[in-house]
């Protein structure tokens, strides 16, 4: 349920994945007692020992910009080579949670998806497909039409796979943060060589932000998890995000931050231009950087603190920034004024 009051702070009692209650209290205590960011950083420093990841930020002020060139530059900066892509089956997973005619700020823009298709094609991908299991609407046709994605996919000559109604396999839960011993993963996802998360940069009224990691909710079949992905929300949003991303690691994330969403995201918020694309191999590092670009505190996002050290780095010193600087694209995103997002409000330390 995008929309149920199951926004939990993790207490870690069910698994070793999330910070324990003692750790969380320690973190909160450090902040409350004046340790502030310094206290938070030392906690993450310990958990991210040895982790480094590179995140590229590219400028694109509008959707008529040469997005493909930005992505090519990003691939170069990240060390992605044609030899690495050649012959691979690439699954591009945009965010198409729900559509409304004329509201293009809800979902990943078709031009970003089309540019990703062409970039992977130029790098020699063997097969490229676009796949999504929309969180709210079962009617894929309507979603594709209203988002403008159908025309873009036809022009790009790539198929769309409806993951909500795909065949699926039952696989062990690689995370263990939720009580689920297994997860049902669509066959199309399981047989992809690279799963690429292509989210929109948005605020989220329960999770704080939704970018590369939360976008992966959309691979989970609605026939199993419901619409909205009810069972996952019931099990806990941060916990589910950790489990899905641990079970199905993304090879790359490309975040559409050209026009994102602020306020009551992920569907009812307002357009917010940030004029950028973020690209990186590690989804946790990408999302932490997104939070910084959005002027929000990554250490206040429960799923990011849970991911820190387990799924990647979120501390700025462990993220190698390339391309544009965070400060050059930073745009303060408003978030809804609710107590459970108080920790998300406000910046972490900036590197710019």
């Amino acid at each position, binding site marked *: 349920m*995008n929309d149920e009051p199951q926004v939990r702070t993790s207490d870690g009692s069910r698994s070793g994945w999330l910070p324990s209650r003692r750790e969380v209290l320690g973190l909160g205590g450090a902040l409350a007692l004046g340790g502030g960011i310094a206290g938070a950083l030392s906690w993450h420093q310990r958990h991210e020992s040895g982790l480094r990841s590179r995140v590229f930020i590219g400028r694109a002020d509008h959707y008529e910009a040469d997005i493909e060139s930005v992505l090519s530059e990003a691939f170069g900066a990240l060390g992605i080579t044609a030899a690495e892509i050649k012959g691979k089956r690439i699954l591009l997973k945009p965010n198409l949670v729900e559509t409304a005619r004329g509201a293009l700020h809800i979902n990943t823009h078709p031009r970003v998806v089309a540019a990703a298709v062409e970039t992977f094609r130029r790098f020699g991908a063997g097969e490229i497909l676009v796949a999504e299991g929309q969180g*709210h609407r079962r009617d894929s*046709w*309507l979603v594709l039409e209203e988002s403008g994605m159908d025309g873009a996919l036809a022009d790009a000559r790539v198929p769309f796979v409806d993951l909500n109604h795909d*065949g*699926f396999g039952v696989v062990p839960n690689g995370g263990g943060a939720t009580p689920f011993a297994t997860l049902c993963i669509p066959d199309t996802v399981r047989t992809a060589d690279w799963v690429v998360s292509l989210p929109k940069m948005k605020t989220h009224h329960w999770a704080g932000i939704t970018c590369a990691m939360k976008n992966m909710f959309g691979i989970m079949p609605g*026939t199993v998890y419901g619409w909205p992905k*009810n069972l996952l929300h019931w099990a806990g949003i941060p916990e589910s995000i950790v489990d899905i991303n641990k079970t199905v690691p993304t090879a790359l994330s490309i975040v559409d931050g050209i026009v994102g969403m602020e306020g*009551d995201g992920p*569907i009812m918020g307002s357009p917010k231009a940030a004029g950028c694309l973020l690209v990186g191999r590690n989804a946790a590092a990408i999302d932490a950087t997104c939070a910084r670009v959005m002027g929000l505190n990554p250490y206040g996002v429960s799923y990011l603190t849970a991911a820190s050290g387990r799924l990647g780095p979120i501390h700025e010193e462990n993220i190698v920034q390339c391309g544009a600087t965070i400060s050059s694209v930073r745009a303060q995103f408003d978030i809804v004024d609710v107590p459970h997002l108080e920790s998300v409000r406000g910046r972490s330390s900036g590197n710019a």
Partner: protein
Amino acid sequence: MPDAWRDKLIDRIANTAATTGAWGYRLGSGESAEATALAVLALSACGRHESLRLNGLKWLATIQGDDGGVPIGSTVPGPCWSTGLAVLAWGDRDDDLSAGFDTNVSAATSWLLSTRGSPIAHDARLFGHDTMLRGWSWVPDTHSWVEPTSYAILALRDVDRASHPHVREGVRLLLDRALPEGGWNYGNTRVLDNVLRPFPATSGIALTALAGEPHSELIDRGIGYLQETLPRVRSPLSVSWGLIGLTAWGARPAEGGAWLAESAARSLHRPANVVYDAMLLLAGAETNRLSHRSNRG
């Protein structure tokens, strides 16, 4: 049925049946109880392919659990939100093929009456709907939503359990989940400060399930939403459920047949989707097991 698109969709459904008797959502996507039930209902509404219908009904029986629930497919024991659709497929009193499935219908009915969605503590700051009302959920022990609640109501009404307290509460839940400006989405009305958007398909499903209930302003708004929205919608799922919902309330627009033909023509240029094809056939049939039984309420 003079339209050529119907025959083409019927053929396509027939050609996508698995040797097990089941249908998947699309070729190669695995067996699906929902796709199978809707394919059987569509072929029945068209009076075609008796043997395929019987195979489909038998396959649904093979996957039914000991508790009566019908899981979404043969490879997992649940969730069983497809049980209501199976009841509709098995229980077609106008179809001689259904005679052998009384036990299955009975067990499935018991499952539906013993299974309900979970309430959650109501917090008016967060949600606009009455979170304590119980209907049916997609997954056991989670919240109730519009679509599974509608399927359960349709099935239980079909077996003459419309007055059961669970059905009555389910009806109240659907009315409570109606959006103030008309229509339904998956089942949230307001979250925090924003009223959410309606969807055509779920609006049609809810209106179909509510057929036979007293007319109300909420119903009129739902009808009005579909009448305003459907003229610019041609996706099979939305236009079909939308028309079935309007038909259930005697509000089917004269252009409905043309919309279906246009949607079918587009659908036939794409890879087969059994649910889409079946829904187009059901929406185009003189009578169907969805709106027909609802009207008898």
